[in-house]
């Protein structure tokens, strides 16, 4: 049956001749493992194209949708994480195999006459592979995709006449929708078409000249000759299968590709390029100011020129490696430089504690954002994923209900207490020193005011003890509470006659708030509900009562927000939310 179909097709399309044209290619000197790299690259390219089409069937290239659709692929679509992971790691595989192919060709002397055009098309394809990577990792529009390519486009803009080029490439003076659509068009149409065209030329030229066999007498080469099919193709497939196995292994181990939090133009993300660009990144560290052009243009340009001109620089008599030592040494030095710079970049980052810390924060934020994205992202896109965070809603409630008098993070009114660092030791010390300072009750019209305690009345050491005592009264004292100091503080409390206005025993009220349990979520909740109730501010209360205006749940959430401003807050909320209080707060600003 099958053979009949093939017969029918062969009669009309000559497919058998086509097959034999490919399969019976001569491999002088016999099939060899070191001829596999070109085939593996072709395989990887085809796989990347297929994976790219699959990703494009869910991905949406716009500043509002790119991140959310990528998160959807990674976290919701069946096997999406795996296919995206293969595509991501596949690009690394292409870079590695390109380098291996390059070395094989260089050591065999395959760039020499008459194969100069093979060499040039090959180098151009290598450049396109890097172009794919550069345009590709912008597309998820996560923090890395937003920040890392900025380095490349900024370098472009810093060159003479580069400003217009940069604008043209990124579709404006800043990154935005047009940057994504342009990079997308380059990544999925221009570069693949370019690569396919060059590949066609490269293969045609390869078929014209054949493999570059070992330097052996012709008779020997003829005697050992194989056909491409099946032996060389088998070796090629073994190499492809090994590459696939490694790719699958890496993809499983990394659970696909990383996806950082959505692009936030106001953040300071720790931008690092993909590992294969680290050498260029490292080079930039050594040349400053007007010399920067050495790192961005002159050195890479000189290296590229050397490689392009290799067939003409190499004047050796034969292809034997020992006759071409200077050329091979030059290529090896170049590669050693790349490896050394990459190693330095990695080592510097490993030793850089701040970078490591920032990276952990970025990864936590990424995890949190992806968790929130499971509920769906509002159409504003990207950053709007943080709207799903209950804490962001609380902050909005704070803005609506509290911020005309109170401030958090320095934003808000000065009519009442500022919650920046609320209840920290510094905050409490400053409060006792001067309760009528503008950040405390300075803006509040109290009938009775607490008197200031300047250093003449309370020494710094006494004040520290007093603060420790006050902290010891709270419902959840800080973990590093100094009990000895707190005890001394109790004596200071007595000597200053604080008890004239404050109580420290349960249930007792006085002119000023009872200090027992002060600062806890429960305490703040009751202040928000009605600050005039006993044992709080009594007749001195000036704050509106919110018990009748807001739902109790919302008041508790507001209290938690205020409580979380103190440095030793114990956030009882569920893990992810708790850890990311600061992250989500930052995200909103």
């Amino acid at each position, binding site marked *: 049956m099958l053979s009949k179909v093939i017969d029918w097709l062969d009669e009309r399309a000559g497919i058998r001749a086509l097959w034999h044209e490919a399969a019976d290619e001569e491999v002088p000197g016999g099939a060899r493992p070191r001829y596999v790299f070109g085939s593996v690259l072709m395989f990887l390219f085809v796989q990347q194209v297929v994976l790219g089409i699959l990703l494009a069937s869910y991905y949406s290239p716009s500043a509002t949708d790119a991140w959310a659709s990528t998160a959807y692929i990674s976290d919701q679509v069946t096997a999406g994480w795996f296919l995206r992971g293969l595509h991501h790691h596949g690009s690394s595989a292409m870079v590695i195999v390109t380098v291996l192919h390059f070395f094989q060709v260089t050591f065999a002397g395959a760039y020499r006459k008459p194969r100069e055009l093979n060499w040039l098309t090959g180098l151009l394809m290598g450049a396109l592979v890097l172009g794919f990577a550069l345009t590709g990792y912008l597309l998820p529009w996560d923090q890395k995709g937003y920040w890392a390519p900025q380095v490349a486009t900024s370098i472009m803009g810093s060159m003479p006449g580069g400003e217009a080029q940069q604008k043209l490439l990124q579709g404006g003076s800043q990154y935005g929708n047009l940057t994504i659509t342009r990079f997308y068009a380059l990544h999925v149409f221009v570069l693949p078409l370019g690569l396919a065209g060059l590949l066609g030329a490269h293969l045609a030229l390869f078929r014209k000249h054949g493999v570059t066999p070992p330097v052996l007498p012709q008779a020997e080469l003829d005697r050992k000759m194989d056909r491409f099919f099946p032996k060389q193709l088998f070796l090629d497939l073994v190499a492809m299968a090994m590459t696939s196995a490694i790719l699958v292994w890496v993809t499983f181990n990394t659970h696909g590709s990383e996806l950082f939090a959505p692009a936030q133009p106001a953040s300071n993300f720790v931008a690092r390029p993909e590992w294969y660009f680290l050498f260029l990144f490292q080079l930039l560290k050594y040349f400053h100011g007007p010399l920067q052009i050495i790192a961005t243009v002159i050195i890479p340009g000189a290296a590229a020129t050397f490689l392009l001109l290799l067939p003409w620089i190499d004047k050796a008599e034969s292809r034997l490696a020992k006759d071409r030592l200077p050329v091979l040494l030059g290529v090896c030095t170049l590669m050693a430089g790349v490896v050394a710079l990459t190693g330095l970049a990695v080592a510097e980052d490993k030793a850089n504690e701040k970078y490591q810390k920032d990276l952990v924060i970025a990864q936590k934020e990424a995890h949190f954002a992806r968790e929130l994205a499971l*509920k769906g992202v509002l159409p504003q896109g990207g950053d709007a994923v943080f709207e799903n965070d209950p804490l962001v809603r609380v902050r909005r409630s704070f803005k609506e209900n509290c911020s005309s008098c109170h401030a958090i993070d320095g934003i808000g009114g000065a009519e009442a207490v500022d919650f920046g660092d609320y209840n920290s030791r510094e905050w409490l010390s400053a409060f006792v020193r001067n309760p009528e300072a503008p950040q405390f009750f300075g803006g509040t019209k109290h009938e009775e005011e607490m008197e200031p305690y300047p250093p003449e009345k309370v020494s710094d050491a006494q004040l520290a003890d007093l603060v420790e005592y006050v902290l010891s009264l709270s419902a959840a004292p800080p973990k590093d509470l100094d009990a000895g100091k707190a005890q001394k503080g109790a004596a200071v409390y007595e000597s200053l006659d604080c008890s004239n206005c404050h109580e420290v025993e349960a249930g007792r009220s006085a002119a000023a708030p009872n200090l027992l349990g002060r600062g806890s979520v429960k305490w703040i909740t009751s202040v928000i509900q009605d600050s005039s109730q006993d044992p709080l501010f009594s007749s001195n209360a000036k704050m509106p009562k919110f018990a009748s205006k807001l739902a109790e749940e919302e008041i508790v959430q507001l209290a938690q927000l205020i409580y979380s401003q103190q440095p030793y807050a114990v956030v009882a909320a569920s893990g992810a939310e708790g850890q990311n209080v600061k992250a989500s707060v930052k995200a909103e600003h």
Partner: protein
Amino acid sequence: MPKDKGHPVASHPVEDEGRRRLLKFGVHSLGAAVAAVTAGPAVAYLAFPLSHDTTTGSGGFVTAGRAARFKEGVPVKVDLLADKTDAWNRLEQVKIGSAWIVNTGGKLVAYSTVCPHLGCAVDFDGASTKFKCPCHRSAFGQDGKVEEGPSPRPMDELEVKEEGGLLSIRYERYKIGVPEKHVV
């Protein structure tokens, strides 16, 4: 060099056929394995919408307004707003569809505006007091029955509920072009 392209020739005539067959088998099985790495997950990936609701929003009751608003004799068209998910997006209070509300002797009935014929939006024609589809001339009475044209079934009635003076409608979409009414 021997030039005999175009003919299937064993490279080494001495090479035994068994070995050659083994290599061919290796080529085919490795090729299939390498392709399956992408192709296998790709099928599950592309078929994701078959087993998951990628767009949700209809199905629940949606408030259509005060019941007293709908007077006898004049059908009123209401837009139904609900929260909706569309793949990665979460949309708050967007239009998920519309319904015609008819008051017959104090009883409120809701019809989907989607014409059961081919999905155009059905209008109410005040002159003939009939619902008319602007696309293919289907016309329906105020009881939803087909009076003219190609529609295979009456207008799709939607479930309604009255609570505290508010009318709610369960908005659903039905399969178009068939005589039976199935939710899609």
